[in-house]
């Protein structure tokens, strides 16, 4: 079965005041249908740029230099902006942002905002006008009930600030699912939430994935969340994919030196608090070859010679490292 989303060899650069930043360099990932893929990386690794590239909302100063983004059999990079807006975003790819408060317009009722999404992106079922609107309202209420938002009818009449953070996030999940997309991209949706609320949302997402048959791309920096929620994992460092594969084997036996170093920092594993020596290279002047080489404990000459080769770890994960080629 063809993966729902497949990114291959993606290279993205962004023009800045200080020069051209090579933000993404040969990034690849594969999200299988009906599964949850966790994209993990630290700040500056290019996660947001990757998401934006997939959704086609890169800033004007950005350029996709190379690569393919295959979504359900089609290469998104050849779509025009109009086609993406009309036929892909919201209708086939849903998006759950990080901060629900910032994503909602404070002066419009929730109902107005959600119905607007449906108005533009919901699949055409033949109904029109008031009839269509009634159907949309019905669907929304059903979704809000499923999200365990209390009093769904009343909720549609309220404003964003009248909800708690957790409830707002549920509203946005409902918005993302409103038009029955096949793929949902979630950008750190639980970072701003309390622990118990986060737990509820993660549980909800897991149920929705199996119930609605969607594929979920979950971006996060928290390995704990990945361990709980995701089926597969993709680790990114400084714009390069370093390791990808099923979650449990990678967490138990990480292969790539960066993955190993990063997991060793996690409080659940760390014997002492060490951190990783050095700092993330600036995308304006990235090191040649493998970008982790300057900080890697197992570095060799071949590491800076060229792009890190593809290899397979004992755990079955794909690793980009000379040690496994």
């Amino acid at each position, binding site marked *: 079965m063809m993966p729902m989303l497949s990114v291959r060899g993606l290279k993205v650069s962004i023009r800045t005041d200080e020069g051209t930043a090579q933000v993404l360099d040969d990034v690849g990932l594969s999200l299988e249908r009906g599964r949850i893929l966790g994209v993990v990386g*630290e*700040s500056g690794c290019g996660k947001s740029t990757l998401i934006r590239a997939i959704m086609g909302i890169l800033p004007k100063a950005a350029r996709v230099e190379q690569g393919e983004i295959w979504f359900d059999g089609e290469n998104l990079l050849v779509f025009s902006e109009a086609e993406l807006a009309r036929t892909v975003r919201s209708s086939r790819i849903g998006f759950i942002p990080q901060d629900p408060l910032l994503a909602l317009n404070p002066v419009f009722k929730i109902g107005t905002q959600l119905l607007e999404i449906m108005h533009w992106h919901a699949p055409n079922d033949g109904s029109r006008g008031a009839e269509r609107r009634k159907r949309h309202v019905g669907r929304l209420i059903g979704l809000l009930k499923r999200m365990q938002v209390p009093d769904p009818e009343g909720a549609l009449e309220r404003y964003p600030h009248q909800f*708690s*953070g*957790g*409830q707002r996030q549920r509203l946005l999940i409902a918005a993302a699912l409103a038009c029955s997309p096949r793929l949902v991209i979630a950008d750190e949706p639980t970072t701003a939430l*309390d*622990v*118990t*609320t*986060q*737990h*509820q949302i*993660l*549980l909800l997402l*897991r149920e929705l994935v199996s119930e609605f048959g969607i594929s979920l791309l979950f971006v996060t*920096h*928290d*390995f*704990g*969340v990945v*361990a*709980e*929620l995701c089926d597969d994992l993709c680790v990114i460092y400084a714009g390069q994919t370093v390791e990808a594969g099923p*979650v*449990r084997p990678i*967490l138990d036996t990480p292969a790539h030196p960066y993955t190993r*170093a*990063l*997991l060793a*920092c*996690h*409080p*659940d*594993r*760390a014997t*002492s*608090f*060490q*951190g*990783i020596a050095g*700092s993330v290279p600036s995308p304006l002047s990235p090191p040649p070859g493998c970008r982790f080489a300057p900080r890697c404990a197992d570095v060799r000459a071949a590491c800076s010679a060229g792009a890190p080769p593809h290899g397979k770890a004992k755990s079955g994960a794909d690793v980009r490292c000379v040690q496994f080629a």
Partner: protein
Amino acid sequence: MTAILTLRDVSVELGGTKGLLRKAVPPVQAVRGVSLDLHEGEILSLVGESGCGKTTLGRTILGLQQESAGKILLEGRSAGRLSPEAARRARGAIQYVHQDAGAALDPWWSIGRTLEEGLLIQGVRDRGERRKRVAVMLEAVGLDPAWGRRYPHEFSGGQLRRVALARILLLQPRILILDEPTSGLDMSVQATVLNLLLDLRKRFSLTYLFISHDLSVVERLSDRVAIMYLGRIVETASAKLLFDQPMHPYTRTLLAAAPRLSGRRASDHVVVRGDPPSPALVTAGCAFVDRCPIAEAKCKIELPLLTSVSAGHDAACHRAASEQFASVRAKRRA
């Protein structure tokens, strides 16, 4: 161990506007009757979710928020019932590190000047002396002394935290209140910051009050943990005891909800319903009663007090006091 800081029945009311031209709004009980001992040299973590009052409690201990009731003793002497400015003078041994370390710095001042300012306020008149101490402290927190000339926006998040630490360490405090010291930091940076904190504690003989919701960090770093819910402390114990045998139902749901690397699947534990309560909520009995999986009739009408359930382990729950719970350790760890 001696108690360097003692709180007895401290309550804090916030907000509230008086009548006259507007409708009177009653104040909110952010902290309700908290009693706490902070022992010298230990790391005590204050854990809770939004609205529990941990930040307000931290600011009250610092002095920027005045308590409405209760006693605060610092190093054995009474230091309570003071206005913010007086409180800061009396409790200079307590310093605070903000969650957003960068926003706590004046963007128009170089960090060197900001660091020197603390010394200037303390009365160090000689400029050379100030410069020297600042340079020494910057090195102690792992920063190049030459960077004193730089401005806050030129530093990364982790570095700003070090700057914030340097700033208050120059004031020679004994107690540090750290508000979410690892939030917003990458894992690798987080590890370095925690390492630094442990190092500094040893070097400068400090006592830490951590305010955090990151249970992984809390478990690894703390000596003792206090769990807060709606303005009250509902459980205190040593870190080991609390994580091995949580007594209070809220603590148990909190521990169960925290994402751990062992990857316990998000579907096989009691999921608590609803959201953390707003501090405006006033209850006669236990505040957790609506969300508690083992609530009884008694819980609704009678407020459970923090009582000892075993050696060094206190919980505010009627049922915890009278029953024993099985250890959840086996289920949690991979």
